């Protein structure tokens, strides 16, 4: 999703990018998502008033959790979520990445591109609780490709989806289980997620679309 959408910026392209989330907002949203994951996956997961998990019940479900990031930007997001969960609960959470390029249904239209790594935890994903992590949920096609890739990588007990931004315009019956921020957008707009690991800074921008019409299902944001 975020992967290709760094269109060469020409003077005519999109007018004033609006900042949707600042660096501080991104950190807060990631923290909140980490708490939501803890709540869902920690066994008996009671969350105290201070937001910390009762240490007695913090283990179990969380140790079965695997956060699988979809490159490019889903991968650092998954690592951040795992780090925050570990900071809040003291439980280590496995992280992986699954490159979906070879599973895309739009290769013919968009052309080939360099592959990103696929790395799974040593314990694999069989019978574990997988949460796919991506930056932006748009058409849902990346997620479909990721589900196909997961099927070839193992057989998780369950698969859920966490995204930093849900911008709507789904083309497939797919929804996210954990959403950092819902953003109503028009199809012509672009949502760009920048992360320190990949882009040097944390921010989420919305820009007006450029004049040319993007074909439905293409991998824009």
């Amino acid at each position, binding site marked *: 999703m975020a992967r290709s959408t760094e269109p060469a910026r020409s003077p005519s392209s999109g007018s004033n990018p609006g900042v949707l989330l600042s660096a501080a907002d991104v950190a807060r949203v990631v923290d909140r998502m980490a708490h939501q994951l803890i709540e869902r996956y920690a066994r008996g997961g009671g969350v105290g008033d201070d937001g910390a998990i009762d240490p007695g019940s913090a283990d179990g479900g969380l140790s079965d959790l695997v956060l699988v990031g979809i490159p490019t930007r889903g991968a650092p997001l998954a690592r951040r979520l795992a780090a925050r969960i570990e900071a809040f609960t003291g439980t280590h959470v496995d992280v992986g990445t699954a490159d979906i390029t*070879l*599973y895309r249904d739009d290769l*013919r*239209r968009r052309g*080939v591109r*360099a*592959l*990103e*790594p696929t790395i799974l935890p040593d314990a694999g994903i069989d019978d574990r609780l997988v949460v796919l992590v991506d930056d932006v949920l748009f058409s849902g096609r990346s997620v479909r490709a990721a589900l196909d890739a997961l099927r070839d990588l193992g057989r998780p007990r369950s698969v859920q989806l966490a995204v930093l931004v849900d911008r709507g315009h789904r083309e497939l019956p797919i929804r996210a289980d954990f959403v950092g921020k819902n953003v109503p957008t028009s199809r012509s707009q672009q949502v760009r997620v920048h992360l320190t690991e990949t882009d040097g800074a944390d921010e989420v921008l919305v820009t007006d679309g450029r004049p040319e019409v993007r074909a439905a299902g293409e991998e824009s944001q």
Partner: protein
Amino acid sequence: MKRHLLESADLDRADATLVLDTAAQIDQALAGREVKKLPTLRGRTVVNLFYEDSTRTRISFELAAKRLSADVINFSAKGSSVSKGESLKDTALTLEAMGSDAIVVRHGASGAPHRLANWVRGSVVNAGDGTHEHPTQALLDAYTIRRRLGRLAGVRVAIVGDVLHSRVARSNVWLLHTLGAEVTVVAPPTLLPVGVGTWPVEVSYDLDAVLPKADVVMMLRVQGERMNASYFPSAREYSRRYGLDGRRMAALGDEAIVMHPGPMNRGMEIAAEVADSVRSTIVEQVGNGVSVRMAVLYLLLGGRSE
């Protein structure tokens, strides 16, 4: 990338590196998986058009295409209408009319894949043409070197043996040069091509002088079937001067590796003890060949061309 892969010169440094990186990612993605199959080229058809015998190249391409879910048609000249006199062009047009997206061609005549590329709309991959080139072999050799030694730039490679008849040597010379390796060809004068002076290589006639400085020794098969004259006095003499035996292997540096594109003439250019030693990457090369060919097919066929 260009639409066809006909010779190593079709790849600039960026393209060649992209192929190697892609192969590495595919390797990593498939490692330890039960389902070693990707849906990437579903619905595409790859024709293996083999006018010369081949074991590993044909099987390697077939496996690569199948692992990417392409449909594969194997065509060998024996038992086809070629024996009734059908030309390469008519055969190719027939295959294309049946909807092939890529033709992987091996032919005894140097340049046959170039001719083919002018006749068909799909991609053409050269799987060895006469004594000209065999680019995917060079790519898998480069991939193997990079995996073993961690780099290609500055690596000193000695290519030893029947350089005159070897398409593997030609492809490797150009690709390794593109990727920044330093190549020395070692052969008796009768087994060096006339134009070797124009290649970006050093030339030596003395294997023992070259071995201590080499990071990679690439032995070539003595191609008896292409030799219609005597290029050296006897197999025994060739083996003594240019064969790699245990004694010579001992002269190599600690990290140096020994490669051979196969099929080997054990006891001729390479001794069994060398072929089976830990320095030998010969079996590894075969495995790497599948990943590299998957990368090539993906990059040529995966998306729109140009």
